[in-house]
């Protein structure tokens, strides 16, 4: 199954469950509180996901390692390499 199909399947399952409870499609006679909680769930979950995404990406950007040490080391090695190659006969 492609990822798209997996998503559509999962969304359909959740959608059916939500519809069943919110509109009492099978006439289960749920207590009113079930319907009150279920009804805004989709929007609520989207908002929660949105906040989670922002927080996660924000955290990851803030903690993205800056490899200062690696850049310095590379600079030093570039010098070393140039000198060594010149000795070995490389002509630029």
């Amino acid at each position, binding site marked *: 199954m*492609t*990822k*798209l199909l997996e998503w559509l399947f999962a969304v359909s399952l959740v959608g059916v469950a939500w519809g069943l409870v919110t509109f009492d499609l099978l006439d289960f006679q749920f207590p009113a509180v079930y319907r009150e909680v279920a009804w805004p769930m989709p929007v609520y979950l989207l908002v929660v996901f949105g906040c989670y*995404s922002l927080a*996660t*990406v924000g955290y*990851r*950007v803030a903690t*993205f*390692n*800056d*490899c*200062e040490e*690696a*850049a310095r080391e*590379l600079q030093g*090695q*570039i010098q070393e*390499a*140039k000198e*060594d*190659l010149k000795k*070995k*006969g*490389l*002509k*630029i």
Partner: protein
Amino acid sequence: KTSEDSDKYSVLLPTYNERENLPLIVWLLVKYFGESGYNYEIIVIDDGSPDGTLQIAEQLQKIYGHDKIVLRPRPKKLGLGTAYIHGIKHATGNFIIIMDADLSHHPKFIPQFIEKQKEGGYDLISGTRYRGDGGVYGWDLRRKLISRGANFITQVLLRPGASDLTGSFRLYKKNVLESLVERCVSKGYVFQMEMIVRARQLGYTIGEVPISFVDRVYGESKLGGNEIVSFLKGLLTLFATT
């Protein structure tokens, strides 16, 4: 430490106008492979660079030997996927290392890739900038944001089981790389992503090693709207077809 087993590592270096960087990357490869004792060769795939990259490569061949520096040039810029195919055809190693020739990928990580691969028998090792003490030098806030944002969307949509999908510093078993390249159809960043996604589909095992990516080119080549759009198009295609 000397290597007694028969493993040989072929490093593929596709080049285009890397006259200045090629000798430096080769020097570093020779240094770290020499110190580690692993058997290797460096295959330079130059796509007709007008700046004389091939001539520099020929000099390096004289210095380091034809068995260590192998030249397999092509007449013009033909793309990365075909460069890999071309390189694999001429590789005498049983492992292939792919990396950038512009010094953003440092050969010091190669022994770590090799050791990780031996440790877990992995089919491929991916260098990751996003985990452990991996990271990047030379990126501003905007670039980091785009990178992390794109990676997040990719993780949510594709759940690939690897932290760095667009990275191109990797070690593959030769037969694994062969089977993946012939199945992949995308270009650019998305090509590297597709390789990982297909690897998972085919049940290949993936190990990760944190790497530092030193971007000395970012100032000149900004990541523009076009690239972002084509990345998203590619991502959605992978989402819908894999």
